[in-house]
């Protein structure tokens, strides 16, 4: 239609507002990976011997593995010896009051409230900068409720019995190539423990920031909700703009015991690379939740707008009877971004239910793949799944792909799959414009409408951020 080519080109320039670098002295391990590096890393973190051994086991197994090649992704080979596996600000803070002002400034710029003065926000934050956690807010208030919210390094030192019981119990060291690598070299991450019967008094959130160049970020998050406990957890991520590709290989494990409820929300805005596909984060992440107890519930909500390449399948193992798993996802690929993302719902218990809502948006030359597995084991009588998988195409050079897998071993199961693919039509655009909305507002309104079902699942502040992020990410992606 009438949209001029030149307008289109002009509008295609995306702004990535989180692309700055913080100039701060860093303690970095030299690039390369071997057993000495793992010893050094473990020593830097003052870890107990069992942890070091756990890492080494993972490393030795990783050496026998090869990167997965089944995803619909075009990944340049990664030189694992060229990556530095540890980078930390030199001044290690003992408390929030001692955190380097430059770091506080960084998080301020990103809109993350690290000062306790951000009480109004009512969200407790753990900030992870490169390889280490630089501060966790609201610790006292949480401790009073019996909630443990701290960095993983600290948890290994302070709460080894809980960590040992649960670490690797959902995503084992040998689970997959990137999970094994993470198990060997994970640096930091968040640890959350909600004891029996406790409803966490506030939202918990972790803000991951990659700053140093030539490093990887390998964080490990573990959330345990005991019987009848509940928690809502948010994570956000950004990184500076660089021409190199940086690897981010995280592992997240969730454990929900009887009647426990875990809600995990992600707004992922790693640097996506430039228009030509130079630079950007490789986001290769293993996230899995185990509904271990009866009547437990785990829900994943993700808004994925960043990263050059995303390989990520937040999953639920529905082990307990009547347990419920949910996956709500918006994944956007623009320019030359690639995403292969989806979920696995493994039904084991009786009367288990799962719901999948996936919204893929492709613009520019973006390639967006939904890959999902719904598996109903023999034991899962009366299991139910509903999957809805919608793709929205903006422009003519992008792609949307859907790979739903279903394995049903119990005849009483009901598994439903709906899929649609649509385009932002010229008609819709003209209709909006004829009412006074400019092109960009029209596109973001149409996309927002497309994503509404998922945004509804996000906590309020995150929903607003997610919406803004989509607007920026889609700037001018009209065709």
């Amino acid at each position, binding site marked *: 239609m*009438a949209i001029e080519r030149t307008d289109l080109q002009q509008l295609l320039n995306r702004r990535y507002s989180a692309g700055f670098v913080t100039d701060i002295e860093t303690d970095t391990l030299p690039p390369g990976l071997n057993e000495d590096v793992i010893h050094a890393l473990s020593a830097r973190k003052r870890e107990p011997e069992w942890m070091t051994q756990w890492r080494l086991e993972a490393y030795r197994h990783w050496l026998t593995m090869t990167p997965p090649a089944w995803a619909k992704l075009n990944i340049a080979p990664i030189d694992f010896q060229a990556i530095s596996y540890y980078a930390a600000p030199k001044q290690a803070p003992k408390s929030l009051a001692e955190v380097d002002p430059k770091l506080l400034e960084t998080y301020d710029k990103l809109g993350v409230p690290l000062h306790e003065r951000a009480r109004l926000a009512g969200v407790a934050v753990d900030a992870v900068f490169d390889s280490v956690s630089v501060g966790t807010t609201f610790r006292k208030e949480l401790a009073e409720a019996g909630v443990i919210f701290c960095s993983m390094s600290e948890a290994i030192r302070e709460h080894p019995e809980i960590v040992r019981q649960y670490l690797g119990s959902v995503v084992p060291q040998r689970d997959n190539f990137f999970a094994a690598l993470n198990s060997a070299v994970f640096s930091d991450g968040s640890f959350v423990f909600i004891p029996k019967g406790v409803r966490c008094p506030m939202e918990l959130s972790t803000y991951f920031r990659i700053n140093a160049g030539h490093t990887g970020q390998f964080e490990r998050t573990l959330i345990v909700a005991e019987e009848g406990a509940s928690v809502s957890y948010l994570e956000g991520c950004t990184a500076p703009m660089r021409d190199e590709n940086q690897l981010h290989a995280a592992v997240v494990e969730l454990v929900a015991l009887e009647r426990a409820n875990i809600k995990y929300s992600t707004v992922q805005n790693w640097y996506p690379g430039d228009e030509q596909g130079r630079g950007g984060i490789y986001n290769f992440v293993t996230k899995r939740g185990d509904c271990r107890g009866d009547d437990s519930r785990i829900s994943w909500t993700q808004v994925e707008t960043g990263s050059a390449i995303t390989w990520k399948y937040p999953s639920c193992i529905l082990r307990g009877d009547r347990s419920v798993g949910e996956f709500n996802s918006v994944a956007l690929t623009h320019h030359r971004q690639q995403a292969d993302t989806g979920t696995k719902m493994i039904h084991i218990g009786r009367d288990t239910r799962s719901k999948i809502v996936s919204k893929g948006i492709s613009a520019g030359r973006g390639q967006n793949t939904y890959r999902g597995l719904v598996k109903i084991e023999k034991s899962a009588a009366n299991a139910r799944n509903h999957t809805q998988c919608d793709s929205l195409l903006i422009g003519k050079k992008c792609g949307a792909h859907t790979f739903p897998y279903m394995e049903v071993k119990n005849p009483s199961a009901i598994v439903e799959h709906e899929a649609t693919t649509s385009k932002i039509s010229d008609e819709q655009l*003209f209709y909006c414009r004829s*009412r006074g*909305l400019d092109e960009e507002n029209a596109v973001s309104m149409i996309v927002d409408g497309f994503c*509404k079902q998922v945004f509804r699942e996000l906590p309020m502040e995150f929903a607003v951020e997610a919406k803004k992020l989509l607007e920026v990410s889609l700037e001018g992606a009209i065709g």
Partner: protein
Amino acid sequence: MLKIDNLHVRVAGREILKGLSLQVNAGEVHAIMGPNGAGKSTLGNVLAGRGGYEVTQGSVAYGGRDLLQLEPEARAAAGVFLAFQYPVEIPGVNNTYFLRAALNAQRKARGEAELDSREFLQLVREKLKGMQLPPELMNRAVNEGFSGGEKKRNEIFQMAVLEPKLAILDETDSGLDIDALKQVAEGVNALRDPKRAFILITHYQRLLDYIVPDFVHVLADGRVVESGGAHLAQELEAHGYAWVRERKPAEAAA
């Protein structure tokens, strides 16, 4: 208010309007009638700024400005409104939210203060009076799952809220039963105003029983071939479009 002079328009390489001229003053209601393919909808679309319409000759002055130079959203802000023949569905976008965003975008472009949600809801309630539009439509997604009649009435409702200076109704009567037609006509009549002009594009005379126009123009083969008062519509209804063509060959009207 609007002066169209010798307008020639091509669509997909074919000339559809071939020298159309028309003058519309504030307060007037003009009906554009004509057989299928005469270029009626093309006229509405060109005025609203839809893409794919190439103006090869002629001019359109609106309030002293060159209308054709303006983006569609700028035309909207300047007071041009097109009620669509086929209103478009926008899934997931709340009807009220959409309308408020549109109104505020227009107000912003005109340098007026934007309305907050309270003020806007007040305005909506006021405009809904006498519209016979089911209130729940305001909470649904734009045109999604609306019946044909609801879509058309929603267009008129948008018009009532946006308060344009020049409203173009593109076959708003098509596909409506007699009750819905009356409601649409009432909506339009309520908006008649000395400062507002209407162009009613219609195939049938039926709508004009309820909205009495000041002028009727017959469009044939891309040109206005006859103009007259409201009675012209009745004669057309009685004799058919062939009657005009026989009386006035297209060349003579150019």
